[in-house]
């Protein structure tokens, strides 16, 4: 596979940026990726979402006192806005010229998990997502502070129920176990004391605030230090610990490059991260440039997002339906804003089960046939009254290839874009599909190349980058 294609896939979601990487060079490409501005205005579908505590109370009151019909309406609207939020993000994935910020935002989204389902406020989820976007290349310690104090997180991890006479340890525990230093590096007592420090940190207007009567102002002992610590103090202390950088560098390596990164690499980059005071940009630059120089393709299973976007990009599908994309992602176990639990999507091998693989193959079959992916194909058991005769939506698909090339040139052109390795059998299969006397100028040639592409997308090799 071409390096530019490989890294376009790694730093984005498809081969779309390969040309840009070649034009700019890798370093410039990275710098421009970091420098990308992003939209800060509130999306219109959030205009009438309740935003202040007062508005939320009002809404809750109206549900409580309303009829069953009113309640239904409110819930329907909530679901609709949550769906709109997904589509809003998917559109960003699709359209960013330099998608690295979105890829990194998605990384943080899966690190500092807060789901729509539990938070139940699309506005707070949006806020949380914007913090991740704004700080995607910022400082990990500062980002952690902001997230702990976000409305979405204090609700998601039940800190709204954490008060001095009734401690709830959830946020305190995950702050250590999942967000920063990781299991094995702290004591149960640290969690208890941390929970005390977080007691009373509750929903606020723009971000969470301490409630005077619920907070615990006693002296806490945290990693051997003593004081009347609050949320920011906890984060400061955690980031003084030697082992704090490794969990995150391991996760970054897993997100971008290796399903199973070596511990040596984790420590190597982790130590550098600490030295850079947890500045994310220099860490990413170091990882990307050093890994770019290595031969390490084929070490990661594509996540559903990358799988699908590469497919639609290769097939030159321009009018992607973000509703269907969102549905596909959910079916594939990558439902945005709705990870199964606080640990987030596991990634790696868990991206592929036989069911998921089959869905991927079906999606490829449909798209290569010029038909959109549809619920019909994924819902195995049709419901009563479903019209089985629904015609599938027709879309225009085509694949780029050298119209002056012979079969081997076209095969290697596609392989270089799509496959991290081609062994003898695979090459033989491809030459069987596109034989030596294949004529690229033949009226039907594009269909033949589409069939080749379709075949490639179903190979095990294609599932890896």
């Amino acid at each position: 596979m071409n390096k530019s294609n490989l890294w376009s896939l790694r730093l984005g979601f498809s081969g779309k940026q390969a040309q840009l990487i070649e034009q700019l060079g890798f370093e410039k490409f990275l710098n421009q990726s970091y420098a990308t501005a992003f939209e800060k205005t509130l999306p219109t579908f959030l205009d009438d979402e309740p935003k202040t505590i007062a508005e939320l109370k009002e809404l809750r009151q109206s549900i409580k006192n309303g009829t069953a019909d009113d309640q239904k309406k409110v819930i329907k609207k909530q679901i609709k806005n949550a769906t709109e939020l997904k589509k809003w993000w998917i559109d960003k994935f699709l359209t960013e010229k330099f998608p690295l910020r979105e890829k990194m935002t998605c990384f943080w989204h899966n690190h500092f998990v807060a789901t729509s389902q539990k938070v139940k406020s699309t506005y707070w989820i949006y806020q949380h997502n914007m913090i991740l976007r704004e700080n995607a290349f910022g400082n990990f310690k500062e980002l952690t502070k902001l997230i702990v104090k976000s409305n979405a997180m204090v609700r998601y991890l039940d800190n709204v129920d954490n008060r001095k006479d009734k401690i709830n340890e959830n946020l305190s525990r995950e702050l250590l176990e999942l967000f920063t230093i990781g299991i094995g590096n702290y004591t149960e007592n640290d969690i208890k004391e941390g929970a005390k420090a977080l007691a009373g940190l509750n929903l606020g207007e723009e971000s969470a605030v301490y409630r005077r009567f619920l907070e615990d102002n006693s002296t806490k002992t945290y990693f051997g230090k003593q004081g009347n610590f609050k949320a920011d103090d906890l984060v400061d202390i955690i980031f003084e610990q030697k082992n704090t950088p490794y969990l995150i560098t391991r996760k970054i390596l897993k997100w971008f490059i290796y399903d199973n990164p070596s511990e040596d690499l984790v420590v190597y980059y982790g130590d550098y991260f600490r030295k850079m005071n947890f500045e994310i940009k220099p860490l990413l630059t170091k990882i990307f440039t050093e890994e770019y120089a290595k031969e390490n393709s084929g070490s990661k299973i594509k996540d559903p997002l990358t799988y699908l976007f590469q497919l639609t990009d290769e097939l030159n599908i321009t009018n992607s339906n973000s509703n269907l994309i969102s549905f596909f992602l959910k079916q594939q176990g990558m439902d945005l804003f709705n990870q199964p639990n606080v640990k987030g999507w596991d990634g790696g091998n868990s991206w592929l089960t036989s069911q998921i693989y089959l869905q991927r193959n079906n999606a490829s079959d449909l798209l290569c046939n010029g038909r959109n992916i549809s619920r019909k194909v994924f819902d195995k058991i049709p419901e009563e009254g479903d019209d089985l005769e629904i015609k599938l939506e027709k879309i225009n698909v085509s694949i780029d290839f050298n119209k002056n090339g012979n079969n081997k040139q076209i095969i290697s052109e596609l392989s270089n874009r799509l496959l991290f390795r081609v062994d003898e059998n695979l090459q033989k299969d491809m030459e069987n599909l596109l034989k030596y006397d294949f004529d690229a100028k033949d009226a039907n040639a594009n269909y033949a190349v589409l069939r080749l592409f379709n075949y490639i997308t179903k190979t095990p090799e294609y599932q890896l980058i």
Partner: protein
Amino acid sequence: MNRRNFLSLTGTFTGGMLLLPDFLHAFGSQNNLVIGEQCLVFIQLNGGNDGLNTFIPYENPLYYDLRTKIAINKNEVIGKNKGMAFHPALKDFAQMQQNGDLSVIQNVGYPEPVRSHFRSQEIWQTATDSNKYLNEGWLGRYLDLQCKEHQPTAGINLDSIDNLALKGVEPNSITVKDPNRFKIRTDKEENVKLSDNPQLDFVRKIANSVTEGSDDIQKALSKSTAEISYPKTGLAKNLEWIARLVKGNLNSKVYYTSLGGFDTHDNQLDIHKRKLTELNDAIFSFYTDLKKSQLLQNVTIVVFSEFGRRVKDNGNGTDHGTAAPMFIIGGNNKSKIIGNNPNLSDLDNGDLKHQIDFRSVYATLLKQKMNFDYNKIGINNKELEGLF
């Protein structure tokens, strides 16, 4: 597979059971005995099989004149019948014909023949005119119309790549690269190291288990065993698996597999003999297996290639040609030789002129065996007389 779904698929009923005589009257126009579920098994010979050295006009002096280096000696040919006989490697083809189970259809091709492997295979697989293009295969189109719901195992392709012939709008067929994958996996197999890349190994293992319809296939396999032992060749293996699926009552309508290596531009005598031997042995095992299981009348085997080869040799081999014979085995065929013997004196640029359009054969198979109106998939050629 849900048997109920298949009732809409064919005009025939449950496998292995004799139909009620009453029912046969409904098919009054058909005089063949339709017994049980019918299926078609296609064996595509890739590369352009040399028809003239397969089913040989051994009494035609022109044959020896034009093929000085590669003609098969008249004393070696087998199963002589009205001036035609089989290549010595095809001894069991002669046997099957003697048993009344094999028909030969001579000079099969299509107008304005194309001599590109790639394009000619496309033409055979889509059943179009040679200047027309379709993105769906003829069997795929047939299954699209016959399967009311998506039926992953309506067509089974045993090959490493998908076959255009089976490609339809709906995925009603599957390609099985290695039927061994359907054997119940043991822990030992799971731990086998496949490559130096553990992630790739992981994905390959998943890939091996994903084929849609694999439950149905496993079920069919668990219900059947091989009655006889097959040769250890790729084609024989594939046919052995097909036999097990048929015997296990999978109820697929179409099976497809292929054998490569027929592109004999050079060193033809050796290569062709080896390939025909492989073909003969594999098919005869398959035939014997089906016969023992009393299923041969339900299974129609179709052997064809994308084109035949040039009449005159090029030295030790032959170049791409046009018309060639097709072989039909089983399915209660009438065991005849259909069509005239190849005319070696009336050639088109050194190639045989076709007399029977391959789509006539397709039409006959669809109508007689699948009870399907072939016009619906755009085949307008006339059915062949006297095949079934």
